[in-house]
Structures are given as structure tokens and as C-alpha cells.
């Protein structure tokens, strides 16, 4: 009683902490603290989306016309570019004239967009500071670019990561389910007692191998294999992740499905065989339908394991945060992102909180999956009695 209460409280505290930290990202602007973006006062463009700002600085947008302003080429300016316009003498020995010069530059360059620290903002500032919106939940979820440390505006789009996670997991389950099912059928219906007693512990042992070892195995064997088979520039792809995850999900799927199959009442199998059904007909028509819910539970738990898996995936998927179109492209999953980036994200900063928000998304996905398992197994225990 006490221990279960303690466990529940701990779990709730962890989830609470996760969501508190994760929610922080939506109270912040995607621009570094103490920096500002400014344009000329004459500029008619009022609002610029974070993704557009990135495009401007990537020089994909080069004219204000593209944003609904005047036909005027965009002049990019970062604080470091000041020496292109003024000599060191003009800026003063300790850059004391720096704010004035920026002010002057913005005033005389109508097409400018300037990014600099607000300590260089002059008292009689003649430019117009751009209003940056806080990160919205919808933008966070639908954004297609993940550059959490990009300057001047961090790009917090988690879509590629969610897609990456789902693609890799889906691929894994598509690979693991037929193999796992076949193995479960073999173990429960075909193998001799001795063979089973030998194989079962071996398969269960697979679950005990640390995931980093699987990752290493994937990196050394599967990645080169995929690279040469499909003639790819790199072998670190979603497929490599799927294969490694499939191997990791197999013990779960096999064990749970096999248990369910062995629970098929002997009377059912005998009844089927006594009617002249062959062994395989009995397996397809009696054993599999009877254990369908167990097989589903095994598959879903397998997916659950695949979605949450970090290390092995991090090692073999190439970690490119782009929306994948095929499994033969590098992908980046949510857990891999958190593991790879949390060490570099300053505590309490925007990036840090964005990673916690990613954790929340992962939690919601796996929570949903577990609810599904509950639902499936409950529905079945109803059916049988």
C-alpha cells in the first residue's frame, strides 16, 4: 500500500516536472535573451514569422517584396558585420560609438535587417524593433525545421522528429511482426519440448543485451550492409534504425505472442484436428484467432519499446532532422534528439525547455500506446468469459 502510493507519487512528480519544464518553451521568444532584430522605420513589413527570418538569414528570401513590402533588396546585418561599414577608428577604442553607428546605419539603409545585442541599442534608437512572437504550440508541432540553436531565430519545429520516430518504429514493427509471429508459432506449436526449452531462454536473453551493444552491432554490420545493398551515400538511415529496433522488439513480441498461443485450450486444438483440419489449418483458424489479443499486445508493446529506444537509434539513424520520404534517408528520432542535445543545452534556456517539451510528446505517444494495450487485453478478457 505504502510502496504503491510512493511509486504513484514519484511517477506523478516526474510527469509533472516534465510538463512544467516542457511548458516553459511556450512562454519564450525564439530569439536569444538580450538580442533584438531591427528594421528601418520606413519598412512596411510589420510581422515576420520565425521561419521567414531564418530564410532571410539563409538568403532564401532576398527582397522585402517577397514578404509583402516594397521592392527593396534585403541587407543582412549582424553585429560582427559593422567593420564592413565603419573603420575601427570610427567605432572608437572600446567600441563606445558602436550603438550610434548601428543607429546611423539602420537609419540610412532602408532595406536593412539587423541582429545585435540590446546593449548596443542607442538611446535615441531610430530603427524599428521587430516584434517576435512567443513560440506557439501549433507552430511547435507543425514546424518542419529543427534548428534549436540557430541564430538569430531558433527553429523549433518538431515535425521531422515525430515523423522520424514514427517512421523508424513503423518500419521496425513491420519487420519484427512477421518474424516474431513466425518464431512464436514455431515455438508454441511446432518445436519439440527440448528445442523450445533451449530456444526460449535464448530469446529472452536477447532482451537483456544493453541497447548500446545493439547500436554497435547495427553500426558495424547493418549500416554497411544497407549502404552496399541499396547503393547509398551513407548507410545510416531510418531503415538501419528499423532493423536494429526490430531485433530489439523481437523478444517482447515472441515471448508475449508465444504465451498467448500456448494458452489456446488443448480442447480447441484437438477439436479442430479431430475434424480433419491439418496442423497449419488449426494454427491459422484456431490458435491465431484465439491468441489475437495477446499477439496485438505483444506487437504494441514492441512498438512501445521501439518508440522509446534511444541509444541504438542514435547510433545508426544518421540523425538528420529532416522529414523523411523513404526509409533510406537519415532520420532523427525524439529520444535520440534529447539524448544528443541535452548535454549542450544551457540549463533553463529555450533549447533546454524545448527538449523537455519533446519529452512530453514522447510521453504522450507511449502513454497512448500503453492505454491501447490495456484496452485490447481488457476487451479480450471480457470476450472469453
Amino acid at each position, binding site marked *: 500500500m505504502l510502496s504503491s502510493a510512493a511509486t504513484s507519487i514519484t511517477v506523478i512528480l516526474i510527469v509533472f516536472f516534465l510538463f512544467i519544464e516542457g511548458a516553459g518553451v511556450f512562454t519564450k521568444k525564439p530569439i536569444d535573451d538580450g538580442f533584438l532584430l531591427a528594421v528601418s522605420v520606413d519598412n512596411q513589413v510589420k510581422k515576420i514569422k520565425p521561419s521567414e527570418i531564418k530564410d532571410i538569414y539563409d538568403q532564401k528570401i532576398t527582397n522585402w517584396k517577397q514578404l509583402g513590402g516594397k521592392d527593396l533588396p534585403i541587407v543582412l546585418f549582424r553585429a560582427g558585420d559593422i567593420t564592413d561599414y565603419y573603420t575601427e577608428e570610427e567605432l572608437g577604442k572600446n567600441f563606445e560609438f558602436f550603438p550610434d553607428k548601428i543607429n546611423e546605419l539602420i537609419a540610412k539603409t532602408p532595406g536593412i535587417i539587423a541582429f545585435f545585442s540590446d546593449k548596443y541599442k542607442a538611446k535615441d534608437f531610430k530603427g524599428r524593433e521587430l516584434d517576435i512572437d512567443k513560440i506557439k504550440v501549433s507552430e511547435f508541432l507543425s514546424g518542419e525545421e529543427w534548428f534549436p540553436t540557430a541564430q538569430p531565430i531558433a527553429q523549433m519545429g518538431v515535425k521531422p522528429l515525430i515523423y522520424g520516430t514514427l517512421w523508424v518504429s513503423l518500419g521496425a514493427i513491420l519487420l519484427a511482426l512477421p518474424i516474431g509471429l513466425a518464431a512464436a508459432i514455431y515455438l508454441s506449436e511446432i518445436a*519439440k*519440448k527440448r528445442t523450445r526449452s533451449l530456444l526460449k531462454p535464448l530469446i529472452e536473453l536477447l532482451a537483456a543485451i544493453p541497447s548500446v551493444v545493439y547500436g554497435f552491432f547495427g553500426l558495424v554490420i547493418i549500416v554497411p550492409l544497407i549502404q552496399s545493398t541499396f547503393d547509398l551515400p551513407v548507410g545510416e538511415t531510418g531503415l538501419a534504425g528499423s532493423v536494429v529496433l526490430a531485433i530489439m522488439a523481437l523478444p517482447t513480441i515472441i515471448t508475449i505472442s508465444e504465451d498467448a498461443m500456448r494458452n489456446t*485450450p488443448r*480442447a*480447441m*486444438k*484437438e*477439436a*479442430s*484436428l*479431430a*475434424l*480433419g*483440419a*491439418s496442423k497449419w*489449418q488449426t494454427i491459422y*483458424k*484456431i490458435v491465431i*484467432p*484465439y491468441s489475437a489479443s495477446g499477439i496485438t499486445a505483444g506487437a504494441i508493446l514492441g512498438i512501445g519499446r521501439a518508440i522509446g529506444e534511444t541509444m541504438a537509434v542514435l547510433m545508426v539513424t544518421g540523425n538528420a532532422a529532416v522529414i523523411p520520404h523513404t526509409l533510406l534517408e537519415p532520420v532523427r528520432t525524439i529520444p535520440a534528439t534529447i539524448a544528443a542535445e541535452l548535454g549542450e543545452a544551457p540549463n533553463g534556456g529555450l533549447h533546454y525547455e524545448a527538449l523537455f517539451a519533446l519529452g512530453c510528446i514522447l510521453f504522450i505517444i507511449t502513454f497512448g500506446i500503453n492505454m491501447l494495450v490495456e484496452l485490447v487485453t481488457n476487451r479480450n478478457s471480457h*470476450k*472469453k468469459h
Partner: protein
Amino acid sequence: MHKIESKNVNFNYGEFQALHDISMSMKENTVTALIGPSGCGKSTYLRLLNRMNDLIDNTHMTGSILIDGVDIYERQTNVDDLRKNVGMVFQKPNPFPKTIYENVAYGLRVNGITDKNEIEERVVTSIEQVALWDEVKDKLKKSAFELSGGQQQRLCIARALAIQPSVLLMDEPTSALDPISTAKVEELIYELKNKYTIVIVTHNMQQAGRVSDNTAFFYMGKLIEYDKTKTIFTKPTIKQTEDYITGRFG
């Protein structure tokens, strides 16, 4: 010619010898009852007739069993075909978790019958044969588990009959049923005798007396006495049989 003929059958579960040198034969369209105390080998013998014991690991059989003159333990015997010809009804009703209709249709489908009309016709005929039609005709699409135990058992018999076997094995088919259901099943056995060769294992001596033409008494894995039912129950030649029949042991 005998329908079923066994010669010197020995059967082992691992080290344990369950049957010793059983030789007996059964005529076509007769009912043979196998009686004897628990563990005497009567069910084991019954399950040899459709090779159900093949499913149990670590068993061994010697001797031969002929059905219609063909040794069913020959290497070239197709076990699935054998079981189509030799139907079986089990001790506890074991309908599939399917509808009443599908329970009976199952045997037809697995035997490659795909014509819908034929399946329907044979399902209806089989259910009528076991006198269940009036009770289930309105709920063919309902789960078989909604039926009572006695109805389930008759459904299982219908299921076995649907594939038109010539031999029907029954392993204590009424031991899980109430007296009324039992009476119905016995009546059914009596009617089926015209078309099928029936071998029934039973613990119930009165039942053996009521339904069977011949009775075989098994004890400790041996066939002690095998004769006309009337003879076995009125003047058995062996003392052990008499003791068992009169309830002195068993």
C-alpha cells in the same frame, strides 16, 4: 469384414505402458462401449483409433489398427484424412469461440468445401440430425457459448457428423451433462447407430447397458473381457468383470 480391427496393440507413455496387447474388432454400424475404472486405458485406446495420441510427446505404439482393412499407422496414411473418416466427440463440450453456424461449418471449410449452398445444407442437416435444430434455428449467428452444456455437446456431435465420417468416437460424452441432456445424447447415439460405427468410452455402466451392442471391459491396460453387452452384464465369464459390474470395485 470388421470395420475396426486392432491386433496386439501396446502403447507407452514414456516408460509407462498404458495398453497391453489389445486385440479386438468391431463390426460396422454397431455401438461398442469401453468400460473400466479410471486409468485403465480405455480412453487411450479410443484416442488411438483416430491417432489423437500422436499429439502427445514421447509416446510409443506397437501392433496394428485397421479401419476398413487399412492399417492407419502405416507410414503412408494421411492422418488428416483418417480423422475426417473417424470423427470424435470429447468429454467436455468444446465448441469453438465462433457462432453456432460456424462451429458446424468449420469442419467443412477446412476440408476444402467452399460452395456456400452445400455448406449451408450440410450444416442444417447435421444440426437436425442431433435434434438441435428447433432449439438453435433462430440463433445460428450467436456464439456457441450461449448454449447450455447439453446443447453444446450435441452441437459438437453435429460438428463431427457434418464431415460425414463413418466412425464416431465418443470419449465420455455425457460425463459433464445433466440427466436430461444425457438422455438426449443417448437417444441420439441409438439413432446414429444405423449409419455410423460408434465407439463410446463411459464411466456409467447403465449407459453402456442402454446404448451399446458390445462392451469391452478394460482393467490396468489390459482387455479383460469383450462380448455382447447383454452377456457382459448378465453372465460375465471373468470374475474381475463381474466384480466391476456389480460395483465391488472401480
